[in-house]
């Protein structure tokens, strides 16, 4: 079963329910397909003078529909936060948002009559396309990440992962007591220099390469064979603990990576949506005043 399947089917849990993509047996997907097909057919069959563009009656109609749709699409941000009583359901909103939002690709394009240029109109259009593309990314992450995140976390919460790491640090400090000062310094550095949440890009790649723990581990492993006899046992202990910490760090970083991925796209989607709104206002104002 692919990850996407679990959203289109009622997932493999024994309790029947639908995810946002399948909501009400694809009600909004169906609606979006119907709207798109109808508007294409009308586009092909109505004869407008001189040719299809935003200024014909059909262009106006599609433009108005698209604009209203965009305004409504933006309202999901409000709906999500204004928790009022009533028979609404954010899952239904998301479902409609995704499918109807995608149908804009058809509606707005037909509105333009494929008349693109270097102007504010096409700017609005381009922004819209980017918003929609980022939306698709979002849907992809929403559909694939949660399952992997659940696997990775192995039934711990983020807070529990972090506490576990901190308690390993304590064990490290204790285990380092019998070592020579040089090693102790190494261990202490590994503790203080290890950043669980590095910069954005390291976080997205979830790499351990530049992690101080990995480095310390590598150096200790290198130094161990030549260490004095009585240092070997404690060094091995230290390395075992460092290994455990490393594994835990990897899990935690992966977790952070997933959480980042689940939110990062929104940082494109939402600002672009506002930019789109602004460009759209400019577009509409300009066509009324300067056309």
């Amino acid at each position, binding site marked *: 079963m692919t*990850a996407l399947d*679990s*959203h289109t089917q009622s*997932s*493999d*849990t*024994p*309790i*029947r*329910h*639908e*995810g*946002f993509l399948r*909501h009400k047996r694809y009600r909004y997907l169906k609606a979006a397909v119907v709207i798109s097909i109808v508007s294409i057919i009308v586009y092909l069959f109505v004869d407008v003078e001189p040719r299809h563009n935003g200024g014909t009656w059909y262009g106006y109609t599609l433009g108005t529909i698209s604009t209203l749709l965009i305004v409504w699409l933006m309202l999901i941000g*409000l709906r*999500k*936060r*204004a*928790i009022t*009583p*009533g*028979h*609404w*359901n*954010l*899952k239904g*909103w*998301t479902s409609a948002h995704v499918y109807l939002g995608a149908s804009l690709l058809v509606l707005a394009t037909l509105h333009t009559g494929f008349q693109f240029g270097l102007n504010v109109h096409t700017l609005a259009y381009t922004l819209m396309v980017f918003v929609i593309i980022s939306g698709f990314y979002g849907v992809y*992450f*929403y559909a694939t*990440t*949660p*399952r992997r*995140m*659940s696997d990775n976390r192995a*039934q711990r*919460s*983020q*807070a*529990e992962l972090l*506490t*576990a790491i*901190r*308690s*390993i*640090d*304590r*064990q490290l400090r204790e285990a380092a007591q019998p070592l020579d000062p040089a090693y102790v310094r190494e261990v202490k550095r590994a503790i203080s220099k290890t950043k669980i949440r590095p910069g954005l890009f390291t976080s997205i790649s979830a790499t351990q390469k530049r992690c101080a723990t990995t480095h310390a581990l590598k150096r200790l492993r290198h130094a161990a064979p030549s260490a004095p006899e009585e240092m070997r046992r404690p060094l091995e202990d230290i390395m075992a603990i460092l290994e455990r910490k490393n594994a835990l760090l990897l899990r935690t970083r992966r977790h952070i990576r997933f*959480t980042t991925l*689940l939110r990062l796209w929104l940082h494109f989607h939402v600002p672009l949506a506002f930019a789109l709104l602004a460009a759209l206002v400019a577009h509409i104002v300009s066509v009324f005043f300067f056309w």
Partner: protein
Amino acid sequence: MSGIIKAAAGGGTGLLESFKVAIVGSGPAGLSAAARASARGISHILLEKTSHLSDTIYKYQRGKYIMATPDQLPLRSDVAFEAGSRESIIDRWDDGADALKINVRLNSDIVSIQGSQGNFQLTLADGETITADFVVLAIGVQGNPNKVSQPGGDLPFVQYQLDDPKEYFDEHIVVIGGGDAGIENALGLAADPEQGNLVTLLQRADGFPRAKEANVQALHKARDDGRLDFITQASLLRIEKGGSGENPWVAVVDTKDGEARLACDRVIARLGAAPPRKFVEAAGVEFTGPDREAFPILSAQYESSVPGLYIIGALAGFPLIKHCMNQGHDVVEFIAGNTDLQPPDTPLLELLFEKASVHRSVDEWLDYIRTGVEILQDVSPLQMREFLLTSMTHYKRLGEVIVNRNDIGSSIFAIIDGSVRVEIDPNDKKKTVPIEAGSIFGELGLISGRRRTATVRAGEPTMLLEIPRNATLKLIASVPGVKRRMERLSMERQIGQIFGRVLTPHDVGEILSRSEIIPLRAGEAFINEGDHSTDIYIIRSGSAVVEKQIGGKDVFLSYILAGNYVGEMSLFYDGYRTATVRAAIKSEVVKLPGEVFERLLAENSEFRQTVEKQVAQRRRVNDYIEAKRESFSSVVDMHSSIARFLLEQEGLSEATDALVIDETLCIGCDNCEVACAEIHEGISRLDREAGNTYAYLHVPTSCRHCEHPHCMTDCPPDAIHRGPDGEVFIDDKCIGCGNCERNCPYGVIQMAAVPPKKPGLFSWLAFGVGPGPGEPKREWVDSHKKKDETAPKLAVKCDMCAGIKGGPACVRACPTGAAIRISPDDYLQIASGSQD
């Protein structure tokens, strides 16, 4: 406090002084009694074990807001009391004791009471004695904490209480006792690694049978994370010197791997408390029964079975401060001979009977009801008064509905006058069975925790008494006669309800006479696959899972709710059990004799048909499983293990409605928590991340709305109820005692204060004013609450968004549909093939 300690500690066994009344215990009850005695000029002494008045209240956490419920009940005491902070009340009582010149003797632990009216001898722990004509016992129910008896137990760093775990740094701490208190202390001390405490918990038993599951899991997790350690099957041998360097003391512990020596800077012993019962019984006082819930037998004037020895307050079964204080006042009046004094609740009870067609005094009503209603025969007048205060009277015209089928409700109804008709067939309103005056109904819902099974209408003008669930349970627990009569009646009704339509009353009678109630532990099997037996079982309370061995594995077949029966299959399989049936949670079953059924099956064709229908359906499930087994066995396995996870581990088998999160859909946005806080005054009632996961099903920490809510068990003001949609909710009578938080095995109740009001959503969106949607951060709350206003911390839990249009906000606000609420019906037959 002036500390009017009369007698200097004389040492040895000297006779101190003689008083008319000796009052033991200076809680609200004892204090109020002493105040009355002082005001009346009666010679008295108030004896208090600790070094301050009212130890129970003294031990409340600092700043706790104390409630003065019930509001309608007038206060009748010489000492003032109104809602306020712990400190203000303690001050006021100390001042009151001074002003009234109460004769207090602190540090006076009474260890025995002997004698009788006119000549009681009270012995103190230091060996001195006091004599008195009357004794008022007001020692509450806190009891004495069990002490460490091993050598070293008297060292100064051995303590029995932990007020603030944040006060301890870099210490080796040994916590003794694996009950909830011990576990919570250990977790608290180890919660913050920065504190650097090395905590080890010692538990004598092999597991943690007395602690709640949430705590045990947290403990295991903490050990897996290396935050603390615990040793089971371990007992302390002694505490001795011998450590090295900074830690001179070690605790020597006997473990199953031999002796262990643990460095210890501090020992926290949480060994439970010995309930005061033994002490009270030693004075000759009789209790209503052997159960833990039993109370001393008392007259309407609080006099125990020992003449001249009176018992009041929490020990007498009245857990609220106001009750205690009123009783303190009254008991001294009674002793002084003012026996006509009406208890302060009399006006409230008069109100209860205001609308009755006949006029009777409250005492006459008490008598009329007690003698009229069969199950109440053994209830004392004092207990009558207590449960009547929370009961309601109803007056119904002919044909008026009293309860509807499928209503939520677990109160019982006693028919005082008139009679009712029970509609036994939902499809035919004409088919009814009468219940006459003096009997009760509604007990099946009380026992099973499930919906009403039939509609009941008045058969003539009828007067009814509705007794709420908790009051009924208290009666059952404390009056053996009520328990006996209720059990008999409910068995009769249950058998009648299931088989009554096809069997003659004679047959039902025969079955009843040979049936018995069997209590079961969670997981205990009462039918074993392959056994030879035809006994039939009715699930009286709780629920059961049916499993079958297929290919060496236990496969989950179905889940049986209270009110249904199992075991009939074997009647059709030559008396052999085809599956194993286990209690999913703590349950009770009624065992019915198999031989009688074997005979009836042969004689009664209608009965045979009824049972065959049931069997045919269960056989289909069996066949389906067998068939599925061939094709995709892993699916069946999966369903079995998921069923076990949900029903048994996560307690959903006792749930009526629980939040579950599909982790293949959850994006971790926490909008469910935000929504819950938004719609409920800023406190989220669920913790999404906490809780267990299995096969991508996550059960967050949030209320399951149990059939028999554990949280209701010990609520002094009776503030927890089940609402019309089945939700378990806490009303504004809550006094914040925290009992429900401790009693809920799933850890879903929190004690929290309502945060200040925040600016609206638009000012936040547009100008960034306020903390935004969801539960505000601690810092924001601290900087925005009004000065010197301490909002009381009260119990907060999920109320299923009852009364909110659209229903549960957590589900509505989930953007992907990961959050769902499920009820037992959703997983009744996970393997039945009803999946599409």
